[in-house]
């Protein structure tokens, strides 16, 4: 009886995990680039560079005592954030994670106000109350990083429900890590998104580890994308260090969501180059492993691809890099000059005024 039931369910909910195999050296232009202008590709590269330089500068500021607490860097994961957000409109929503600087910038935040937040200043996106782990920019649809692993996933489903009820065309992206997919919240959220056919794109950025715990030690399935089949939604694996592959999957999933086709799960396989946070002693992985991934740096790969396809020149790249450098410098100056919040306002914003 139980077996029969299982089979019936399988029939009504076929697994649709599609494994996209990376080709050795694709000589052709990725199909998705037909939909993206040369300018938007250059902007994508600029955003990836901006994320990288933002995080390197934030790390530097941390060392110099300008940043309080801890932070989680996404260096090495930039193609994933920018590739997903390339398919989004400013009116689309996003929930992010503790490793959320890249998502925030990719969705359109100003690095000046992000630095101000990191420095605990009043001009920060959270008026200095949140810091790195709660960075948000509601004006661009980023509902915030989250200090609770998996915390944003059900929230994203709620936002999607709200969009559907209000007949708004916005879709919602929920970023989370490979560790988060073992929280009950992940499973409950995917199920609800599926039964209610909600416009949400679940993006698991699988960087191989939740802190020190590798996904093969924590996760029963080999690929997180396999879990999509349990909730009758499309699951897809992409090379998270390949902008084009990520963007293609994102456009497909966003299109499905906007057309009422319901949720999708994208597993973006990538790697975090830095430690989990400031306290990481890196005991659980080898130097060789890190070096192998350094050789697959998503920014270098994207630059080379754009050069090869003639979307950009080396002079353009130099100009973009110089421009990013200027933006970072100005942003830090802005953040330093911003006033600190006043102690008298400690309990402000707990309730609506």
């Amino acid at each position, binding site marked *: 009886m139980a077996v029969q039931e299982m089979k019936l369910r399988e029939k009504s909910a076929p697994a649709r995990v599609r494994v996209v195999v990376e080709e050795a050296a694709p000589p052709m232009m990725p199909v998705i680039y037909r939909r993206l202008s040369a300018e938007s590709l250059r902007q994508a590269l600029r955003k990836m560079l901006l994320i990288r330089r933002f995080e390197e500068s934030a790390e530097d500021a941390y060392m110099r005592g300008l940043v*309080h*607490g*801890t932070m989680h860097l996404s260096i090495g994961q930039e193609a994933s954030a920018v590739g997903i957000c390339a398919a989004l409109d400013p009116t689309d929503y996003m929930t992010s994670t503790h490793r959320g600087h890249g998502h925030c910038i990719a969705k359109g935040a100003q690095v000046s106000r992000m630095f101000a*937040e990191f420095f*605990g*200043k009043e001009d920060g996106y*959270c008026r*200095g*109350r*949140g*810091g790195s*782990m*709660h960075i948000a920019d509601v004006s661009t649809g980023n509902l915030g990083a*989250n*200090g*609770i*692993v*998996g*915390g944003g996933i059900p929230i994203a489903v709620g936002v999607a429900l709200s969009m559907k009820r209000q007949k708004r065309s916005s879709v919602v992206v929920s970023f989370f890590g490979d*560790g*988060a997919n*073992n*929280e*009950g*919240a992940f499973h409950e959220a995917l199920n609800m998104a599926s039964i209610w056919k909600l416009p949400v794109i679940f993006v698991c950025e699988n960087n191989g580890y*939740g*802190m*020190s*715990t590798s996904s093969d*030690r*924590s*996760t029963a399935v080999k690929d997180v994308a396999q879990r999509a089949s349990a909730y009758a939604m499309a699951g897809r694996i992409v090379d998270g260090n390949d902008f084009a592959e990520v963007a293609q999957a994102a456009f497909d999933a966003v299109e499905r969501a906007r057309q009422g086709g319901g949720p999708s799960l994208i597993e973006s396989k990538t790697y975090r180059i830095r430690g989990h946070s400031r*306290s*990481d*002693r890196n*005991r*659980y992985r080898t130097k060789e492993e890190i070096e192998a991934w350094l050789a697959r740096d998503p920014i270098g790969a994207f630059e080379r691809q754009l050069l090869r396809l003639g979307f950009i020149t080396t002079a353009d790249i130099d100009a973009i890099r110089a421009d990013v450098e200027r933006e970072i410098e100005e942003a830090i100056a802005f953040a330093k000059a911003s006033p*600190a*919040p006043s*102690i008298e306002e*400690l*309990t402000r*914003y*707990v309730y609506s005024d």
Partner: protein
Amino acid sequence: MSTLIETRPAQRPQDVFAGDGRSHVSRARELTYAQAIQEALAIAMEADERVFLMGEDIGIYGGAFQVTGDLVQRFGTERVMDTPISELGAAGVAVGAALTGLRPIFEFQFSDFSTLAMEQIVNQAAKLRFMLGGAVSVPLVMRFPSGSGTGAAAQHSQSLEAWFAHVPGLKVVQPATPYDAKGCLLAAIADPDPVMIFEHKLLYKMKGEVPEGHYTVPLGKARLCRPGRDVTVVATSIMVHRSLAAAEELADEGIEAEVIDLRSLRPLDRDALAASVKRTHRLVCVYEGVKTLGIGAELSASIAESDAFDYLDAPILRLGGAECPIPYNPELEKAAVPQTPAIIAAVRNLVRGRR
């Protein structure tokens, strides 16, 4: 009426400030608070095969605060067990193991994440024995790294101990010194019921005298840290040290504060508190959890309901966390919980009759 209050060499207040580089008079043997916990874990695992550890990144990573450190090398991955990031499920696993002959010690990476496991703690662990008419027990220990002061903001800085203390079936302790950290943990492991241990993150690097070998600190007994005639300051966790520092300064002004480390929220040592208030005639409660409906309310009420009430020469005062989440900005963060100068001012005003 008077209950046992043990006295031990008072912890020097500056000990709290980890890594300040100051050296102290050499004592028999000093360990940090984190080392004291680790030693207790090792002693218990060595002595009893049923004892094992569960938590996120407590193996090769050593735990987010290096409390388990290298224990995995000594006891292996079966007894120092990394769990997936599944607080609710893993807490349930611990409850099941405790029900059936094992002695799990569960580490929350941050106390805040216990909110994901409330179901298992509050509805299951705390009630199973009662619901089953005493047929089972749940010898479970859970450790909660708590408190603010690290810049980790609202979701990694909370002091939720009063929540748990509100649940009959749980025991809730807050050791403030390395000595108590080890002794309370060993007592908790020996206890047949679920014990929740709230450890303050800022205390992990604090050093103090810790005897070698096995000893226990009774759960539910307060500790008199410093006798004084003018006012009783009852504090928990890191606030014990801030209160001791305050008492030292106040002594220079001629105000003698008696400082009591509550140590346990459930059971609550009401007698020790009442006895002290009868001696000093004034009471100030200092704790980090949010003030309203916090532990101070219970302490005040318990004095108001007792015969110690007649001895009071001044209203009872509470110093607790501000009515807001813990903010990120360092100055705001400090302002959100009691600090030594605020304790000094409050006690001085109370004793001098200025409020």
